């Protein structure tokens, strides 16, 4: 099944549930009408929160840059000993 169909099925299911709520008036009408707005807002908040948390916990590795420089120096030494010229002009 194409993925867009899965998402659309989810949207349809949620809409059906919402229309059900409107019809049966378990919750008051004015409140039920606002539910989709809340849904969109909470989706947006979820997205922002995930980006924010991801940004705060962004894994960085400054020590790796140092190790890489050491590896590069070591590699250059080896290449020189084998007579491979890698100097860029």
């Amino acid at each position, binding site marked *: 099944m*194409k*993925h867009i169909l899965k*998402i659309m099925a989810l949207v349809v299911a949620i809409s059906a549930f919402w229309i059900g709520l409107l019809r049966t008036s378990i919750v008051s009408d004015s409140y039920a009408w606002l539910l989709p707005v809340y849904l969109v807002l909470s989706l947006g908040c979820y997205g922002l929160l995930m980006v924010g948390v991801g*940004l705060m916990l962004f894994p*960085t590795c400054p020590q790796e*840059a140092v190790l890489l420089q050491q*590896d*590069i120096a070591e590699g250059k030494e080896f*290449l020189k000993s084998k007579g491979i010229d890698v100097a860029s002009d």
Partner: protein
Amino acid sequence: MEEEEEQQQQQKKGKKKYYSIIVPTYNERLNIALLVYLIFKHLRDVDFEIIVVDDGSPDGTQEVVKQLQEVYGEDRILLRARPRKMGLGTAYSHGLKHASGDFIIIMDADLSHHPKYLPSFIRKQQETGASIVTGTRYVRGGGVHGWNLMRKLTSRGANVLAQTLLWPGVSDLTGSFRLYQRSVLEDVINSCVSKGYVFQMEMIVRASRKGYHIEEVPVTFVDRVFGSSKLGGSEIVEYLKGLVYLLLTT
């Protein structure tokens, strides 16, 4: 019966897996030499070959590769050049045609993918029997160096968007440091049409949809020239287009 089983087990142990490492290059004279040195340093008891797919670099990358062949042997380093720049996706299928390994490893030549992680890819595959092992920067033990705040922000935003819309089952969609079972790569690569790093995303999403077993290992990613991998407006548009394309076709 028991003897037969024993024999089979011995055969299994005796027949070592063969790995083909495909590295596309363009003007990577110094980097390819360092990369080859580091691969041989970190993969001591593994049978492997390196396939360099060079797109007609004018800086003499191919001459350096030929010198490396003299040091390490022409059976270990294969140069399979193409006349001009023809793109990443076709570079992989070109390399694949000349690969003789049971497993194919794909990595970048610019040392952002460090060969010291290769043993963990291989170990993970052997432990889990996975069809694909993909390197991820976004878990404990992984990481990125050399990105400014803007680059991190776009990366996180893109990731959250893709995770929410595509449910891909892997944490790092655009990383391209991966190990594939040969038949799986052959199967997936033919159904992918995107270019650039959307191609990497399409490969892993399609593989995930086809139900292949995918495992992750942490890798680090060092940008050596600070801020060199800027994401411009056009890249963001390309990414969004890729996302919609994958939504509609997978």
